[in-house]
């Protein structure tokens, strides 16, 4: 008997998708100076989706829908919450920048929303085909967004690089899915788990090669070393608000797909040692290369690679503890990273592009509030106690110790210490260096201010009272097992 359609499961996705098309159509009729209406519609749409996600936490009965293609479980809903928060903050960060730099492109918000739609599909997918399509849905708008600043050479370069490498990675993912389909005769993850439980014979070698190829495709999107080559160039070339957007949500989406395929379902083959090696390499390589960067966007790009390394530690640990610490860390990472990028956007709001760390000299006395906020975000990214980043790292490394991965925890902690060095470089530049040129005023836009204040409050609040957020992440993980 076929399961029913079960519409409510995909209501959040529908809300985002419909908002995207409303924005697209309204954009046609709006004259250039009223494009700000589009951002309001987008914000409203994301808030509606967020509300539906919260309502779906209480969904009773069978949460699978559309013939087992999608599911609305606690893990998926938790990640959808992260995507909604990330997109909401990214829209706030973008408004002024978009109006100043590319006012004609009203489709900017459509692209952002549809990318979020793809991430949500990935979070709720229970079928490899659906995961692949969600990934494409997420990536194609990102390729365009990276190159939306057509007047700048670097933006075009970023878009082309991202597109070519992304298409190549999709090929790996698709080939892996084909091999897994060949081994089991189905692409449905639930069905594959059932088949294995029934003792159906399969060739482990075959499934292993397929799984590794799928992992390569997803690891590319998450930015795992050695598939990270595109990240610094794309993050540097893309407009700063777009970088803020794509450093948070898409990474979380790739991680949730990895969790679903390799951790939450009974693992078909044991890939623990693969994840162990990837975690160590990613953490170390990201941190070492970040030390020498002068451009703040490049520095944050390498730091984001290092953060994916910490997430891989949680994936290596696996089980309930691994999933919950990864889920919690992704929420924290989304908030603090978008916050840091919001400050970068704030300082970039002038005639020239203030993107080098040395350009930040003297900001401490000139813009005290922004400088203090940046200091807090840097402390949080580095994992200094009292901030959200510390709680996140603590959960991941304590999970590693509880499960006997002592070396992994040691390497992780050493890496965090290294990372504090380059985060502090920004703070030192702001407070202890004299500016080379006279600093001009920055016009503070209210929307950017909203984003900065929300992220700041959340980083401090999660850092001091993490209990509610932790239990939310625990719930997301516990129901999955």
């Amino acid at each position: 008997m076929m399961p029913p359609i079960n519409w409510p499961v995909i209501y959040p996705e529908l809300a985002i998708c419909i908002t995207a098309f409303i924005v697209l159509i309204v954009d046609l009729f709006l004259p250039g100076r009223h494009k700000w209406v589009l951002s309001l519609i987008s914000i409203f749409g994301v808030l509606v989706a967020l509300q539906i996600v919260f309502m779906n936490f209480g969904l009773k009965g069978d949460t699978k829908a559309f013939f087992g293609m999608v599911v609305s479980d606690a893990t998926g809903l938790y990640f959808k919450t992260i995507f909604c928060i990330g997109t909401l903050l990214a829209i706030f960060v973008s408004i002024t920048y978009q109006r100043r730099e590319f006012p004609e492109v009203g489709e900017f918000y459509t692209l952002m929303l549809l990318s979020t739609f793809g991430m949500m599909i990935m979070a709720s997918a229970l079928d490899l085909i659906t995961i692949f399509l969600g990934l494409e849905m997420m990536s194609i708008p990102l390729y365009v967004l990276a190159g939306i600043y057509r007047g700048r050479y670097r933006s075009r370069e970023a878009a082309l690089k991202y597109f070519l490498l992304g298409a190549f990675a999709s090929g790996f993912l698709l080939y892996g899915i084909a091999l897994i389909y060949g081994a089991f005769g189905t692409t449905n993850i639930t069905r594959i788990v059932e088949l294995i439980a029934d003792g159906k014979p399969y060739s482990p070698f075959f499934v292993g090669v397929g799984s590794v190829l799928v992992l390569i495709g997803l690891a590319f999107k998450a930015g795992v070393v050695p598939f990270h080559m595109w990240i610094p160039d794309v993050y540097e070339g893309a407009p700063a608000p777009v970088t803020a957007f794509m450093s948070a949500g898409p990474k979380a989406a790739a991680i949730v797909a990895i969790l679903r395929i390799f951790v939450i379902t009974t693992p078909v083959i044991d890939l623990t040692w693969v994840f162990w090696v990837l975690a160590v390499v990613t953490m170390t390589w990201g941190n070492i290369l970040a030390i020498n960067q002068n451009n703040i966007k490049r520095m944050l790009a390498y730091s984001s690679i290092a953060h994916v390394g910490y997430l891989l530690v949680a994936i290596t640990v696996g089980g309930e503890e691994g999933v919950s610490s990864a889920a919690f860390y992704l929420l924290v990472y989304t908030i603090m990273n978008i916050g840091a990028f919001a400050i970068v956007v704030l300082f970039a709001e002038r005639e020239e592009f203030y993107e080098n760390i040395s350009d930040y000299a003297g900001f401490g006395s000139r813009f005290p509030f922004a400088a203090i906020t940046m200091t807090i975000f840097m402390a949080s990214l580095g994992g200094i106690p009292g901030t959200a980043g510390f709680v996140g790292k603590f959960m991941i490394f304590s999970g590693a110790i509880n499960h006997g991965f002592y070396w992994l925890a040691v390497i992780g902690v050493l890496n965090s210490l290294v990372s504090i060095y380059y985060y502090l470089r920004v703070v030192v530049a702001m407070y202890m260096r004299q500016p080379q040129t006279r600093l001009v005023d920055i016009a503070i836009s209210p929307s950017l201010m909203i984003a900065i204040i929300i992220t700041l409050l959340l980083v401090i609040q999660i850092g001091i009272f993490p209990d509610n957020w932790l239990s939310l992440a625990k719930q997301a993980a516990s129901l999955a097992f």
Partner: protein
Amino acid sequence: MSMLIFYILAIVAVVSALMVVTLRNVFHSALFLVLTLFSVAGIYVLLEAEFLAAVQVLIYVGAITILMIFAIMLTYQITSKSIRQVNEQVIPAVIIVLVFFVLSLVTLIKTSWPVSNKSLPGNNTFEIGRQLLSTYVIPFEVVSIVLLIALIGAIIISRQDGPSRPGQEDR
């Protein structure tokens, strides 16, 4: 007999695929791509997947390669130019590709393929249509949105009145 046809088609497909990535003239590469895709369509016919074969010819041969040939012809002086398809990293690339090739070859040979004894439904296309609009309706709908956003993205990137500010060109 069908084995013989398969080998002919397979050899044509592989050889012309090699031509696509080695020839120095873009236009010739595009023509060999047509040949590759045609042979793959032939293999689909051998496997009694007529619908796939028709789609392969219509979309890949009919639409995509023709578009590529148009793009090549419209691009200024690209057809007469001789291009190099390899760069200085060709040797490591060949090694990695060979390793991957051997690995997939071993995989394909070692696997016991699950074989279904069920006979094919008499009307393949009918069954595919039913599946697309029942079990696979979510992927089907998502694909349509993916295509739409690809279209919108292409328009945003290529339109003339877009955000171009010559003053801010940084290189």
